[in-house]
């Protein structure tokens, strides 16, 4: 058996704005990458590496790897080794106090580095015991009767005479962590600082599980049950989704902060909880040596998600071609966020065929709503009297529709007309069916050629 004990020391611990360690579980998840036997013992993280040290190239190499891959870059990381966990822990405590290690380990280790002996230090010192060896040489029976079985068992474990038992850390199937906020948060952006800590833990979990996050839920506990005479729910939450599974916390952090900026807390929040809703197996990124493949910048879905979160999903739109003859329905604008991953081949080919028709007569700009034109006698006017140049093009469609489809059949004669001020415009004359006819001819403007 061979043990490594690790501990993180913050230089300016205790200051509220100073750097903070990831949660203990998260650090344990990080260590699970190196060995399956990881446990917290008192203040130190213990790694049992006898089975895996060859995989990492030896003990020295493994120590170097661990120290280089510090999960908390702000903190100083101490590491020591020992034949048993207690020896490694005692050496770590000596190292943290910057004392020299004794010649003979474990017998020469000072007694206050043994957790089990800490309660009895005074008495043992008066007995003349200063090192582990001093206590171990006392008669077993008397020692057990006087100090309880615990001290003797610890010494046996330290010498490797008894098997050690530990509560090994395991990776949960779903990431879920709770954190108490350092102070009550009044506004949603104040949650971001603690959410960052949770996100750092999430990253460690995702890496250990080899998964990428697709959907997260950030939930906060409200500190009040009633506020302004309104009963409040115990929790509030925001959900963040991304199109591609990711281990990149910068993108998730931006999405969460944009969501939080739009959220109002109905009462001060005290606890924060982060949970993964959907995760996908992480495939890793394929890289290329070609310069044109390695263009710097964000990916498209990241940009779309960021824009949609801040501006609203209905503000970022992509078109899709539709099979319809009414120009306003020839394309449908959908939120880019809900873009189907890959439309079925056949539908896409049909859409492409529909889109590639030589529709030169359509104007590049469409008005969202056809504009009713004023009349100058028989001729319609838009910034001057219009003169019809090309047409008519007759459209009769939509008779099958109900209210959502436009209400009534579209029977229109389209013309390309020229306005003295606005250039070429696209207008139509509504040709009402005989039974709806009121005798009035109505002209509309629907597009600009520009």
């Amino acid at each position: 058996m061979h043990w490594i004990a690790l501990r993180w020391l913050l230089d300016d611990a205790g200051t509220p704005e100073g750097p903070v360690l990831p949660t203990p579980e998260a650090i344990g998840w990080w260590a699970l990458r190196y060995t399956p036997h990881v446990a917290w013992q008192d203040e130190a993280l213990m790694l049992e590496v006898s089975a895996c040290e060859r995989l990492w190239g030896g003990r020295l190499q493994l120590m170097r790897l661990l120290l280089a891959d510090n999960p908390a870059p702000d903190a100083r990381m101490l590491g020591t080794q020992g034949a048993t966990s207690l020896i490694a822990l005692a050496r770590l405590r000596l190292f943290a106090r910057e004392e020299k290690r004794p010649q003979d380990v474990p017998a020469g280790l000072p007694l206050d580095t043994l957790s089990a002996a800490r309660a009895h230090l005074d008495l043992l010192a008066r007995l003349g015991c200063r090192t582990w060896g001093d206590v171990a040489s006392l008669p077993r029976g008397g020692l057990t009767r006087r100090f309880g079985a615990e001290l003797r068992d610890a010494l046996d474990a330290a010498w490797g005479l008894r098997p050690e038992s530990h509560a090994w850390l395991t990776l949960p199937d779903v990431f879920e962590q709770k954190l108490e906020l350092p102070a009550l948060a009044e506004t949603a952006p104040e949650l971001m600082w603690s959410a960052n800590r949770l996100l750092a833990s999430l990253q460690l979990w995702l890496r250990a599980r080899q998964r990428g996050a697709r959907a997260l839920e950030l939930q906060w506990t409200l500190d009040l049950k009633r506020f302004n005479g309104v009963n409040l729910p115990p929790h509030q939450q925001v959900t963040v989704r991304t199109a591609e599974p990711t281990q990149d916390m910068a993108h998730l952090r931006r999405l969460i902060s944009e969501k939080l900026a739009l959220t109002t807390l109905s009462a001060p929040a005290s606890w924060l909880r982060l949970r993964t809703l959907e995760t996908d197996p992480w495939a890793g990124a394929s890289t290329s040596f070609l310069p044109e493949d390695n263009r710097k910048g964000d990916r498209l879905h990241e940009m779309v998600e960021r824009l949609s979160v801040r501006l609203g999903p209905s503000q970022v739109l992509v078109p899709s071609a539709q099979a319809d003859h009414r120009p306003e329905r020839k394309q449908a604008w959908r939120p880019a966020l809900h873009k189907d991953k890959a439309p079925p081949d056949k539908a896409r080919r049909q859409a492409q065929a529909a889109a590639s028709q030589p529709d030169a007569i359509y104007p590049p700009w469409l008005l969202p709503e056809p504009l009713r034109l004023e009349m100058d006698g028989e001729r319609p006017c838009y910034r001057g009297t219009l003169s019809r140049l090309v047409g008519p093009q007759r459209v009769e469609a939509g008779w099958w529709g109900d209210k959502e489809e436009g209400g009534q059949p579209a029977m229109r004669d389209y013309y390309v007309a020229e306005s003295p001020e606005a250039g070429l415009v696209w207008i139509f004359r509504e040709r009402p069916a005989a039974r709806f006819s009121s005798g009035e001819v109505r002209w509309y403007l629907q597009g600009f050629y520009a």
Partner: protein
Amino acid sequence: MEYCIKIQLTVFAMGLPFLDSFFAAAGRGVWHADELGLADAQVVATGHAALDAELPGGGWPVGAMTELLQAAPEAHVWRLLLPALAQAVQARGGPVVLVGPPFEPCGPSLAAQGLPVEALMWVRSEAPAARLWACEQALRCADVAAVVAWLPQARVAELRRLQLAAAQHELLLFVCRPDSVALSASPARLRLRTDRCEADASQIALHILKRRGPPLASPVMLPARNERMAALLAAARVRRKLRLQQQGTVVEAGETATSAKVVRIDAWKGGPGALDRLAVAT
């Protein structure tokens, strides 16, 4: 002091042959303000030969801001930019992001001119700050092919930020602004003002306000309509004239026969272009 050194160098150069070649080499890297500059980065051809000839490097600069100043925000944008946008989409495969266009872009029409419908992304936001932010985000995205933004209220510092983002990520960036800002300063490398030609409505007069090169005395004239539309209009004119002749009325003096020239387009035969046929047949 510097002048002295330069003069001395020139004097030396007269006599020393190796310095002559040095001066010749140095001269190549110097841009003289009276000749058209070379593009120091990639360019995309505009699709209009007359315009290409007047632009440094022969096209729209990639990785720099191009400003279009127009009286109406919708005027001539597609006519000027569409060929370049179609090329950029084909080369880079990403969408063209339209930030705050004045109207709805009509996909079928753009697709007929080479820009596929799927390659459009419409960011519609009214707030100037949101438009600027969206524009910058789009520029920072690696998959976007080009950005066309309508920023009527942008200030110089904000435009400069966009210009830097475009330069960093090597994207085509077109900013459309009202022509009232033509006299104010701008960080754009290329500034164009479009005008309707008073004499001929089928031409765009393009004033190049700023470029790396000498100021342009006369505007560049470009056809305001694409070939198919021009053909359609010409056919309609011929037909109207024929009808008038059949009715025995005198042809008006304004509609001269020379201006009506029918352009044959092969697409009539292939595609289901019922509209074009209609214009000629009846």
